[in-house]
């Protein structure tokens, strides 16, 4: 555990920055008092709304349905966006209403812009380049080749029998696939740990896996501690339908954004003061958006903390196979193996969207050491089961040892090469990135490009990057980062040749 005091990051400007940051931190951690604690976030929120309204290119964020049949036209013209619809139409729930507000955040606005005006090197060279989606296209060709050769047989079997895949299957996944996935998980983690297929529940992606665990480990009104910055979608996954809160545990650049027990303690106590019962800590390892790996010591400390407070740990290890540095990846499963920790509090989330580049197939994993959670999760899996033909296909693919071995190795190499080149490119512009050992992105420090060292300044820069440089990046504020100026740039949806183009575009903004 590293005990760091408040450190300045250098120079006079930074001192001023700290004067902004420290009270901001205090507000974040609830020390600023109720008034400050409510005014500042409100002010920021209203500014953000106003700011986005000014710069949004079109007024209606919702795609209008095309060609409605004549009979329905009247209905659609009464676009009901508020719960108090016209003509006294029945209301929708509070949960439904909370969604509408999320769509305005930069993360989603950016994604939308790309979908409307996507970059294509030939047909649309002035389009917006997507650097905001943590998706890996670098090794799709490998999967493609395998599928072209093997798909048909894998799904239907040699006798084209459909009853095998058509009928009701165990809703938490076929045991064969669990076995294959357990093997794959072990492989991507370089065999440092083995996974028991019987402790696996398969879900339609990691998104429902995280939500499922949130439902199982916390009641509505409770909270999870989450080291920040964390990836934007986690808010939706954990909070939306469960009514569970997230308390961010701020990590700082001075600590390389690593998690400190001091910060955990502080956040826990703040939650207590707010009357929120903390039920667990959710970590992502490798982390998203920073790309950190948790070292052994931090994991031990985390487990100690969880034991002391009698809470759970959810470790989202979905990027375990996407490490590209020289640091070793350590799963929380490995730590449990080696020590006498209470396993009942540890749960791992995994999936094939990242490491196998198959987000469309919707395969996620809840891996738990807790019998009772396993029982509940198996029953809950019915709400988000994996499609049978997809299961069959993946059983084949994951059992193809040669293919998988080659894939993991090649994918890592390609990730590493892209990472190095991309980070170098940014360096040429004077933009430094946090050292990262995994994930599809780099965590770049663009704070010196901010007009004002604040969230406002950050969003202004984000907007310029989106509308002037025409690249979609994710601002740190969307990831709940307390230090302004950090951006996540994903490089795995690019071809190698795109990198110079991206750098040039960014230069437009850095040199203006």
């Amino acid at each position, binding site marked *: 555990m590293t005990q760091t005091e408040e450190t300045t990051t250098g120079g006079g400007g930074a001192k001023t920055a700290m004067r902004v940051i420290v009270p901001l931190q205090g507000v974040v951690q609830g020390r600023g008092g109720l008034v400050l604690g409510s005014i500042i976030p409100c002010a920021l929120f209203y500014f953000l709304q106003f700011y986005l309204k000014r710069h949004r290119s079109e007024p209606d964020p919702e795609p209008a349905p095309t060609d409605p049949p004549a*009979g*329905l036209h009247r*209905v659609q013209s*009464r676009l*009901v966006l508020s*719960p108090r*619809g016209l*003509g006294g*139409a*029945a*209301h*929708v*729930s509070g*949960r*439904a209403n909370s*969604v509408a507000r999320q769509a305005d955040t930069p993360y989603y606005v950016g994604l939308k812009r790309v979908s409307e005006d996507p970059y294509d090197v030939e047909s649309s060279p002035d389009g917006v380049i997507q650097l905001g989606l943590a*998706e890996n296209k670098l090794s*799709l060709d490998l999967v*493609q080749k395998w599928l*072209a050769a093997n*798909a*048909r047989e894998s799904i*239907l079997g040699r006798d*084209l*029998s*459909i*009853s095998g895949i*058509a*009928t*009701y299957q165990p809703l938490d996944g076929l045991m064969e696939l669990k076995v294959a996935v357990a093997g794959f998980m072990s492989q991507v983690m370089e065999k440092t740990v083995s996974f028991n297929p019987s402790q696996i529940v398969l879900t339609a*992606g990691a998104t*429902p896996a995280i*939500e499922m665990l949130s*439902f*199982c*480990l916390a*009641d*509505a009104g*409770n909270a999870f501690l989450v080291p920040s910055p964390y990836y934007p979608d986690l808010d939706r996954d954990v909070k939306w*339908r469960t009514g569970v809160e997230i308390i961010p545990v701020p990590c700082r650049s001075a600590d390389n954004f690593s998690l400190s027990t001091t910060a955990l303690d502080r956040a826990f106590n703040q939650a207590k003061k707010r009357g929120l019962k903390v039920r667990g800590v959710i970590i992502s390892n490798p982390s998203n958006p920073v790309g950190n790996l948790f070292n052994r010591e931090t994991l031990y400390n985390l487990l100690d903390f969880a034991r002391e407070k*009698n*809470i*759970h740990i959810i470790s989202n290890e979905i990027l375990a196979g996407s490490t590209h540095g020289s640091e070793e990846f350590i799963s929380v499963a490995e730590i449990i193996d080696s020590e006498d920790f*209470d396993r009942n509090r540890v749960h791992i989330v995994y999936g094939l*969207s990242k490491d196998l580049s198959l*987000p*469309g*197939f*919707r395969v996620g994993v809840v891996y738990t050491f807790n019998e*009772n*959670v396993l029982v*509940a999760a198996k*029953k*809950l899996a019915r*709400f*988000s089961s*994996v*499609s*049978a033909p997809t299961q069959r*296909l993946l059983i084949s693919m994951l059992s193809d040892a040669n293919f998988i071995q080659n894939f993991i190795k090649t994918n890592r190499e390609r990730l590493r090469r892209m990472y190095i080149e991309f980070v170098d490119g940014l360096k040429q512009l004077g933009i430094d990135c946090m050292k990262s050992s995994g994930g599809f992105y780099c965590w770049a420090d663009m704070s010196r490009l901010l007009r004002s060292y604040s969230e406002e300044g950050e969003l202004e820069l984000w907007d310029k990057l989106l509308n002037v440089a025409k690249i979609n990046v994710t601002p740190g504020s969307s990831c709940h980062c307390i230090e302004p100026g950090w951006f996540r740039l994903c490089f795995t949806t690019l071809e190698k040749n795109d990198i110079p183009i991206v750098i040039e575009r960014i230069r437009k903004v850095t040199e203006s």
Partner: protein
Amino acid sequence: MTIEVEQPSVELSKIAVSETHGEHSPYFAGWKAYDEDPYHESSNPSGVIQMGLAENQVSFDLLEEYLEHHPQEASWGKGASGFRENALFQDYHGLQSFRNAMASFMGQVRGERAKFNPDRVVLTAGATAANELLTFILANPGDALLVPTPYYPGFDRDLRWRTGVNIVPVHCDSSNNFQVTPKALDAAYSRAEAMNIKVKGLLITNPSNPLGATIQRSVLGDILDFVTRKNIHLVSDEIYSGSAFSSTEFVSIAEVLESRDYKDSERVHIVYSLSKDLGLPGFRVGTIYSYNDKVVTTARRMSSFTLISSQTQQLLASMLSDKSFTQNYIKTNRERLKKRYQAIIGGLRNAGIDCLEGNAGLFCWMNLSQLLEKPTRECELDLWNTILQEVKLNISPGSSCHCSEPGWFRVCFANMSEQTLEVALTRIHQFMEGRKTNGGNLNF
């Protein structure tokens, strides 16, 4: 010597430990009995015959035939480039081609008497997810949905477990073939009010599970009037619409809305799925079709928790867009189900058992109330247990479906071969004969 301090074990949520999943009810206990001793015509001819699973296996050959003649569907449709987009595709709007196919298929199942707009189709991994999702959207924890009885046992879990929403039953009885009446609807609503529970919607299943019968047009009209009067939502679970024995027997709420020029339609939402009509429950394909724009948008976003595999969407898009295939499938499937239904009804009648007159679905609603010593739930469960243990048939007791009259049972007939159905009918016959010769004086 160290003194071990007992650490309190780490707690789980109320949802995790709740019994709302309902899996301790007889409905599921019967399944366990089947799992332990499953019937097989050669290897285990005295095993338990599963008649509690509403699965459609009568038309697999049609699907297999299609796949054999369209090999590209099983691989990648458009080939290599098609795959690339497909594997990455996780847009909650779903594949446009698949949504188009679903909208078209839904229209076909309703004999083109209703048209569906692909932009109102929201995809979910099965109807189970669709029903839960709608409940999350339409109601807050503590609110209620009205559901006519008898209803599918899984609703207790799907509508209530994670959502925290209540079900207030709308009691129906055999005096009018278990049809919903305005009186019953009003009574249920008043009961909820008296308990200080806010009713947010009414959920009907049409064709009905477990009744195996379609809801009449006039009743649908009454239902629509009721929900409009109370300003609540209407969810019409129409997953058995393609399993009506003839196309004209089934009237969808969509048709009623059309006839009313879509007045007040923003409160109506339809749930559909391919699990029953197409016999593909393993594929996990469900949909919400809503006439309410906000619900469509919200449901779409929420479907992130339950997306359909892009590969599956691709696989099915071509098949469902092939009108010659779907037309033939729908027609043939209906005919075969009707034939099965007639076989089981005939067989039961020969054994002296009456059923509710049905015209849809994968099951019949059997009346054994005359066998009960007393018209109580306990007697019904005793009879159910006897049938399970001695006759070796797993059928679903009406009490699991919250039926207000004891003695009714749901019997599935489409999840087995014709031969197995014959065996089941023979066993029932023998059982009934046995009771007659014993003077009919058994204690149940």
